[in-house]
């Protein structure tokens, strides 16, 4: 309570000691009331402590009349003595009007009870007269008025003393600390309600924040400090001339995520100032930002991290603390130790308490884990050792300035979290979707299942037994349900993983087999996988792949297959040469020529290959591993294995291939190794998973035209089409539709699909399917609709409506495909009517605002046929408010595809004179001109077309010349693309109607290039080129005429 009284209560004179009086403020009144409540309830909440005799009496002038005292007191006219006395027979309460001396909480409680209405006054008088009550109660050693109010001094002292009284004294100290904390929180809460800040509240804020600052992710700030160490007597640290402005102090704050902030705290609030000037440490006092009501609000606005951590920890903790303090007196004194410790962590020199803390955690632990003697000692040891290593790791730096909510349990969890954070830190790049799930160690106090104890015993036998005992223990361990997470984690938590991995390093074949059999099972658990990698299990397993025992090879490969589900593990496998060894397992022929060791435990060669494929499948999810598999000669071996008919062999093989087919090199090799044929063959398998992987592999490979043809030639289209009808397995459906999509890029394949009535089925799949399926279905329809018959078919099957409905989605891949499909349909005027009626054009148009450039471009391409084929297209386009401006502004994009598509849209828009006028007003001419310097032929073609169209309005022809679009256009004629030639010649023809443009063209050598074009077989090109030449020529003639009339 000392701290609160010194720091929170508002004294009339700022000087600490002496005879100041308490101001009558709401805050003070509140504090007094809290104290009164505490004292009043003390006698029945803590009867034991109430008898404790203060070192010095609390003494003050009372207004109470001796007559107010009744039973239990010896009353005379001017004096009152309590009947209750101390060891020496001195009364615990002695009143000699008006001076009163009290030496126990019991008597204080009674006094307040007697005082009734005047208790507030009595309390105030008492506090005023006893400015350091704690020192008086507990002795000067516990002077909490000192700057360092940490309880640990008290604790230290008390624990050293052995006299029986010390226990009571300690409890006393605890209670007073609690009260103090409570009062601090109370006043803090109170202070935060005040609009005007004062030095005390600011100081409080800063001190609080300091407690929660430091290194590490958990803290709210990296650091917070005053710019000046000197504190004026009024609590301000600002220089006096700045105090005139109401400024109190300046603080340098370094949040985690932003630069150091130099902040002014003044009576009006908190704001950012001009910062500290480097050389002299002088502060630029000028205000640089808005004023916030307090420091916390300010920081919440400036630092997201602060805000996050603050809300995460501090606020909850504060309320918890308050809650706890309130609850405290009701609970058994046991809990108090926790709170004291808890408090102590926040204080500056917590390190001293480290030992106590450990002991404390230990006590808690042992209390909870009584069932097994062995376990108890083990856990105790662990707690300490973890603690030790952690201390080593953190060195002397101030770690964890945030107190754990409840020591013991929370701390254990926290430690583990810390530990696991440390381990993967060697690879900061680890951020994959399947990466590193959070570690959930079994909380020590959770109800441990009986398996725990049994498994722990078995692990003990593993450690301390010979081969025979080890094998028995391993076999017994396998009798547990290892698929159950409890058992998996139990093995780990009792230190079984280390032992199992160590066994792999021995020469005992049977032990290795037993150990791997267990590891194989428990590595289905993602946490265990990570633990295995952390314990260095993978290199050992990779070495076992060389073992002469096939069963060991199999088990090791299978375990690797399970463990290598995340990237770090896959990398370890590669770095230890695992990929080469796994690829070697695939080679059945090679395996069987090896000297077979007649062993009881052996497997067939096929099984070895299967396990190898299984491991490679897991490993193949990393790019570098794909490369390594290829370099190790894996593809021909996989191709070889693909010829078998064992499903459990085919699945990992095809799985690996499908995974790897994302790489161009693999696709080429897959084609070269004639793998497609077998993939197609296995599409006809009965196994859904196999079908799925085959379809997936075809999907990956069918980007390549030749491969698409191969799929058709090997008869793969029919099974694909028939699999479309099986919609129950969504993964397979996604793979199949993907394969169909990619295959339908080839026209011949589309014809086949139509034959197999796949298009109708696809339309049927447009509704009620997951997005992965929809993307592919729509993609396939988009390809199919490039042909007239299919467009008609899609319309007749009612496919347009669901397609248009899909335009409102958010999945980018889906939107790209949907827009393409809708665009393909819009080529048909009859379909266009439907699209228009469904408001599809507006939906497409609004997709131009989509953030993703692919969607933008695809939507723009789709708009072209819409504008071409819509009735009253001009009117329709104008009806989109802001639509034209949007399109023109898209010319500022830096994506070539977007630009080309938007140029195409502009070409179509410009067919309507009125719209052309509008886009001209929006500045289409300079924007188009700016794009002219490009080497991209697609963009060139559409840009030239757009320019050509836009020339049809006003003085746009001249404007293009002025914006220097002509010279670059001439260069387009040197392109190899006839489409570019045609569009450019047409644009030049339009532009050549302006004399200056003709001059530019002539200067840039257009005539010769155009003359060549006149000889082109393309009629439009011929005409345009000729027209342009004729314009240039006419101008020349006219000039000559003018010159030589």
């Amino acid at each position: 309570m000392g701290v609160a009284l010194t720091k929170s209560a508002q004294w009339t004179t700022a000087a600490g000691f002496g005879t100041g009086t308490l101001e009558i403020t709401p805050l003070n009144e509140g504090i007094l009331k809290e104290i009164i409540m505490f004292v009043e309830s003390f006698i029945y909440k803590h009867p034991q402590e109430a008898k404790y005799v203060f070192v010095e009496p609390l003494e003050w002038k009372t207004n109470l009349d001796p007559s107010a005292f009744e039973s239990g007191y010896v009353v005379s006219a001017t004096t009152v003595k309590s009947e209750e006395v101390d060891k020496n027979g001195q009364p615990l309460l002695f009143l000699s009007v008006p001076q009163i001396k009290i030496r126990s909480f019991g008597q204080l409680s009674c006094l307040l009870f007697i005082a009734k209405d005047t208790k507030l006054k009595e309390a105030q008088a008492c506090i005023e007269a006893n400015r350091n009550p704690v020192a008086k109660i507990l002795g000067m050693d516990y002077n909490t008025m000192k700057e360092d109010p940490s309880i640990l001094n008290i604790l230290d002292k008390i624990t050293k003393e052995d006299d029986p009284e010390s226990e009571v004294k300690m409890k006393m100290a605890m209670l007073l600390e609690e009260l103090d904390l409570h009062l601090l929180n109370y006043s803090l809460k109170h202070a935060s309600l005040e609009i005007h800040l004062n030095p005390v509240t600011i100081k409080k804020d800063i001190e609080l924040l300091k407690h929660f600052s430091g290194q590490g992710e958990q803290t709210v700030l990296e650091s917070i400090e005053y710019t000046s160490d000197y504190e004026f007597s009024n609590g301000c640290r600002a220089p006096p001339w700045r105090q005139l402005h109401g400024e109190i102090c300046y603080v340098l704050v370094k949040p985690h995520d932003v630069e150091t902030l130099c902040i002014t705290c003044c009576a009006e609030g908190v704001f950012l100032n001009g910062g500290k000037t480097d050389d002299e440490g002088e502060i630029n006092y000028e205000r640089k930002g808005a004023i916030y009501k307090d420091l916390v609000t300010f920081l919440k606005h400036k630092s997201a991290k602060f805000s996050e951590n603050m809300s995460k920890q501090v606020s909850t903790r504060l309320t918890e603390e308050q809650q706890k303090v309130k609850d405290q007196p009701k609970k058994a004194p046991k809990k108090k130790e926790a709170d004291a410790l808890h408090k102590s962590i926040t204080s500056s020199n917590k390190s001293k308490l480290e030992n106590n803390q450990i002991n404390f955690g230990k006590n808690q632990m042992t209390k909870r884990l009584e069932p097994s003697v062995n376990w108890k000692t083990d856990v105790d040891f662990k707690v300490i050792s973890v603690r030790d290593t952690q201390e080593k790791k953190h060195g002397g730096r101030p770690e964890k300035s945030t107190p754990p909510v409840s020591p013991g349990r929370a701390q254990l969890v926290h430690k583990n979290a810390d530990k696991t954070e440390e381990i993967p830190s060697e690879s900061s790049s680890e951020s994959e979707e399947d990466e590193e799930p959070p570690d959930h160690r079994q909380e020590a106090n959770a109800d441990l299942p009986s398996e725990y104890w049994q498994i722990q015993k078995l692990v003990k036998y593993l450690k301390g037994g010979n081969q025979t005992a080890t094998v028995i223990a391993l076999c017994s361990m396998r009798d547990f349900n290892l698929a159950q997470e409890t058992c998996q984690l139990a093995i780990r938590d009792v230190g079984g993983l280390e032992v199992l991995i160590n066994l792999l390093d021995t020469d005992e074949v049977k032990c290795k087999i037993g150990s791997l059999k267990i590891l194989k099972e428990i590595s289905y658990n993602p946490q265990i996988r990570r633990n295995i990698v952390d314990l260095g299990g993978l290199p050992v397993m990779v070495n076992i792949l060389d073992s002469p025992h096939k069963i060991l090879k199999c088990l090791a490969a299978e375990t690797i297959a399970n463990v290598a589900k995340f990237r770090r593990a896959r990398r370890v496998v590669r770095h230890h040469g695992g990929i080469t060894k796994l690829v070697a397992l695939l080679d059945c022929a090679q395996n069987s020529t090896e000297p077979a060791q007649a062993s009881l435990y052996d497997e067939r060669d096929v099984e070895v290959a299967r396990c190898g494929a299984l491991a490679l499948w897991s490993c193949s999810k990393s790019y570098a591993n794909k490369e390594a598999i290829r370099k190790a000669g894996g593809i021909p071996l996989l191709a070889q294995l693909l010829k078998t008919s064992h499903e459990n062999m085919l699945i990992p093989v095809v799985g690996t291939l499908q995974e790897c087919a994302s790489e161009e090199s693999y696709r080429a090799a897959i084609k070269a190794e004639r793998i497609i044929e077998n993939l197609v063959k296995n599409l006809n398998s009965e196994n859904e998973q196999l079908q799925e992987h085959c379809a997936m592999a075809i999907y990956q490979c069918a980007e390549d035209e030749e491969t698409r043809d191969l799929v058709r030639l090997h008869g793969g289209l029919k099974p694909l089409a028939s699999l479309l009808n099986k919609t129950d397995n969504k993964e397979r459906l996604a793979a199949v539709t993907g394969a169909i999509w990619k295959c339908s890029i080839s026209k011949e394949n589309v014809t086949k699909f139509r034959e197999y009535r796949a298009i109708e089925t696809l339309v049927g799949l447009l509704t009620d399917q997951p997005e992965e399926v929809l993307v592919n279905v729509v993609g396939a329809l988009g390809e199919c609709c490039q042909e007239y018959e299919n467009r008609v078919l899609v319309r007749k099957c009612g496919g347009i409506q669901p397609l248009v409905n899909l335009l409102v989605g958010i999945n980018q891949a889906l939107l790209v495909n949907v827009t393409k499909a809708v665009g393909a349909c819009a080529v048909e005027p009859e379909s266009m009517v439907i699209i228009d009626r469904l408001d599809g054009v507006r939906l497409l148009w609004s997709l131009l605002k989509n953030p993703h450039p692919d969607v933008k471009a695809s939507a723009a391409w789709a708009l072209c046929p819409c504008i071409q084929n819509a009735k009253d297209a001009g009117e329709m386009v104008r009806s989109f408010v802001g639509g034209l401006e949007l399109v023109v502004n898209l010319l500022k994009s830096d994506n070539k595809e977007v630009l080309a598509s938007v140029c195409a849209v502009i070409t179509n828009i410009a067919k309507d004179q009125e719209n052309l006028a509008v886009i001209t007003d929006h500045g289409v001419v300079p924007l188009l001109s700016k794009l002219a310097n490009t080497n991209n032929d697609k963009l060139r073609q559409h840009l030239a077309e757009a320019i050509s169209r836009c020339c049809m309005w006003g003085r746009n022809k001249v404007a293009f010349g002025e914006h220097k679009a002509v010279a670059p256009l001439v260069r387009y004629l040197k392109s190899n693309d006839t489409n570019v030639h045609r569009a450019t010649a047409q644009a030049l023809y339009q532009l050549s109607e302006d004399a200056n443009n003709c001059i530019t063209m002539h200067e840039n050598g257009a005539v010769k290039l155009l003359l060549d074009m006149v000889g082109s077989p393309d009629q439009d090109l011929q005409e345009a080129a000729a027209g342009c030449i004729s314009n240039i020529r006419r101008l020349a003639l006219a000039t000559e005429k003018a010159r030589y009339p």
Partner: protein
Amino acid sequence: MDQKALRKLVESISKTVKSFKKSEVECLIRLFHSLVERDDVRLHNNVLDRNTFRATLHNLFGMTDDMLMKRVFFAFDKNDNCMNVKEWIKGLSVFLRGTFEEKLKFCFKVYYLNSDGYISREEIFDMLKNSLHQQSSEKETDGGIEELVEKMLKKMDYDNDGKISFAVFEKAVKEETLLLEVFGQCLPEAKICLDFEALAFTHPDF
């Protein structure tokens, strides 16, 4: 040994032991004799006594457990406490070329010593006696062994009579091959067998 007698012996042994070629049988006979002769122990009509056999198991087959080696001896030997050449070769055929079933029978034979056809609780305890490293107290170690015995009985003693019959043993081992030598090593390791064959069949006089 004269050639004639040797050939005769080879013939007769080859009739009962099918897994070795005649030349190999011959090599093994030679080995047997070299073992018998080399060791300066009393000869009973060319038989191998227990100590020599134990030394052989240890030197050639890398076995270490005395008690189990004794048991292996009795599994090799029919009844007379000394091993003749036929028993020797027959035993080796299980060691080197034995089928799973043969090995299964062999192991079971090693484990039930008192020839009542069952492996009893006491026998298991006896065999596992040295399987745990000395713990803090003998009592604790015994407790641990008792528990291992209990675990195995629980695993194999389906009829709950405190002993393991061959049928039960067979069933358990077929389920989990690792249980074949569950109560201690009684078969040489595969690699050692290979080494032995390489040595014995190529250098008959080693």
